[in-house]
């Protein structure tokens, strides 16, 4: 026997059998953390959150008087849309800014997940290892989720620290809980875009094309989605006629808007962060209006706020699951050499 085989150690002791998806996820997670896009996104997201926070902190002194309860002041940093300068320009709030930018986070970590492997010629090699085929998509999705979670926690933690120093107000426990829940909702929202990016990376064969489609969709839904839905809503249910009809059509338009994940996310975030918000929908009847007008302004407790946006959260989760399921099925049905 020559030295070639003598040097090969006996292959009996296999290490603890880890699931294939965990190995894939571990590698992908490491890749993401070392990639340029990770650093760029942390900076972009950090800035998108820090800038409105800075102005909100300046504007909060005026608001502080109107906020009835001290426990809601710190959290107002996140939802307050501050006026900047004297020209009456209103910046979006932290929530608004993150709502615009966060989908990029999801897309960036997924748009080339599968087609990138195809382009590199690594997919057949990867699939010829003793792992299940779905381990590849599952692992990549899990890695994406981990990175998203990491980035969100870091960014929100960072800006909270900034707010603490600048305002000098220590948030109360319910406020911290509200922020944690909001981070969770943001996480789900970004996961939706991650799943969508994954779907594109399976279906579209070139990474550049899938990035273009992904970012195009983001632009369309986030910036023009509202306009398009209003346009359609104006045709289907115009705000004309009797008061009852107008109210009914208004709530119909509201329902249409809720087809956009963007709307669901905003409603959920604002309600979770701002205890003053007591309803997400405008009343559909005159009676409802009267009731709302007679309500004594008060702060909702956390569980009440959460119950209010439960449908929005479920909607976001459902969309995420649907996107991932489509990506999963498409990948399982694809030929290795497609």
């Amino acid at each position, binding site marked *: *026997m*020559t030295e*070639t*085989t003598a*040097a*090969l*150690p006996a*292959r*009996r*002791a*296999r*290490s*603890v*059998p*880890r699931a*294939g998806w965990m*190995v*894939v996820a*571990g*590698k992908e997670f490491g*890749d993401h953390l070392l990639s340029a896009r990770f650093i760029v996104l942390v900076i972009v997201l950090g800035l998108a959150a820090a800038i409105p926070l800075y102005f909100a902190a300046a504007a909060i002194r005026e608001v502080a008087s109107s906020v009835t309860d001290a426990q809601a002041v710190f959290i107002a940093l996140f939802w307050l849309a501050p006026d900047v300068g004297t020209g009456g320009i209103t910046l979006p709030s932290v929530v608004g800014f993150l709502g615009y930018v966060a989908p990029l986070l999801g897309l960036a970590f997924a748009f080339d997940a599968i087609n990138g492997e195809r382009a*590199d*010629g*690594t997919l*057949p*090699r*990867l*699939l*010829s*290892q*003793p*792992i*299940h*085929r*779905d381990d590849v998509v599952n692992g990549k999705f899990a890695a994406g989720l981990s990175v998203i979670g990491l980035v969100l926690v870091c960014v929100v933690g960072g800006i909270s620290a900034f707010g603490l120093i600048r305002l000098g107000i220590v948030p109360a426990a319910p406020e911290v809980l509200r922020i944690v829940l909001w981070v969770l909702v943001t996480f789900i929202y970004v996961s939706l875009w991650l799943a969508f990016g994954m779907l594109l990376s399976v279906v579209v064969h070139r990474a550049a094309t899938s990035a273009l489609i992904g970012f195009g969709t983001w632009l369309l839904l986030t910036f023009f989605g509202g306009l398009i839905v209003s346009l359609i809503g104006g045709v289907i249910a115009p705000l004309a006629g009797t008061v009852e009809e107008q109210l009914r059509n208004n709530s119909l338009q509201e329902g249409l808007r809720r087809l956009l994940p963007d709307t669901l996310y905003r409603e959920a975030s604002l309600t979770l962060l701002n205890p003053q918000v007591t309803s997400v929908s405008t009343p559909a009847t005159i009676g409802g209006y009267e009731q709302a007008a007679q309500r004594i302004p008060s702060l909702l407790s956390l569980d009440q706020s959460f119950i209010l946006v439960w449908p929005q959260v479920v909607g976001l989760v459902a969309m995420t699951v649907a996107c991932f399921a489509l990506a999963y099925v498409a990948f*399982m*049905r694809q*030929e*290795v*050499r497609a």
Partner: protein
Amino acid sequence: MSDGPGRIAPKRRPGRRLATASEAGAPTGSATSTRAASAPLDRRSLERRPPDDVRIRTRALTKRYGDLVAVDRLDLDVKAGEIFGLLGQNGAGKTTTILMLLGLTEPTSGEAWVAGLDPTRGPLEVKRRVGYMPDSVGFYGDMTGRENLRYTARLNRIAPAEAAATIEVVLGQVGLADRADDRVDTYSRGMLQRLGIADALVKDPDILILDEPTTAIDPLGVGEILDLLRGLVRERGLTILLSSHLLNQVQSVCDRIGIFASGRLIGQGTMAQLAARFGDGTGHLELGLDVDDPATAERARALVAAVDGVTSVRTGATPSDPWVVTVASAPDAKRVRIAILAIVAAHALPLTSIREVVPSLEDIYRRAVALPAQRGPEVAA
């Protein structure tokens, strides 16, 4: 050595079949569709399992893509410890066949066994034992060669310390030890193929399936790689299935060869068997004669041509060129050679060499693919 082919049979065999059944139930694409029917099928396929020395067997294996028949009723047998070459033009169905053997593509119909297992039902167990190098193999460019192999080792659940040792060995075997810590995107095509072979070896496979393993490797490197493959078969009893369109490589390294044409296997066997099947039946001898004057040459030609069984004698263009003697039937070549030697001795002809010309694989291949496909696949055992 004791670690011959026999070593493979007992290793990681016991209890594995149970694992296979449970893996088949997991939601891979191929497994889910057959899950319902798997219990009775398993029993049947166990009964029909090939003997242990047949490492790869296919029976009527067929793959259709719509109207296109990529692989048509393939019957293939690869025995333990042999190097089998799949030969065929581009698009002849070689790669599709390989993907079906690995369970990466589901056959339309027919059966396959790899290492005694059905790749469509137990893909994980098959993939654990088969090292595969795809054609135009790719690696993660931002990782080093060693890191790429380490990832493969992790996917195979090899313990890190053991993996490091194995990786060191296989990198040395393919001649990449000094470049192992460079990023893969600095590698040339040939180096990628070398890394691909190393990658297939990391899991210590029983069977090696190589799809166009040497197309981009330089000629000297090809020699090294082919030596490595022969060594693996000799020392560790590996079975190797390789596909190639580089005829002289296939000829030099493969024990048996299967010729593919438009999805069908039109012949399989050793070089001699293929030559017998696809040759025109004639044999050829090459004579080196040191004759200068035409009269002696003509006398010698007449003497050789008179030997029983010789159909023609073609002299060289210049006096120093060898002559080619055609024998009516190939098995007669030996007898003719003895007869010629006797004549040479009797007439004191200045003979410098005499040898039988074996037809090259290229000749065989040309004839084989030129034959009408209706002859169908015949198994020359």
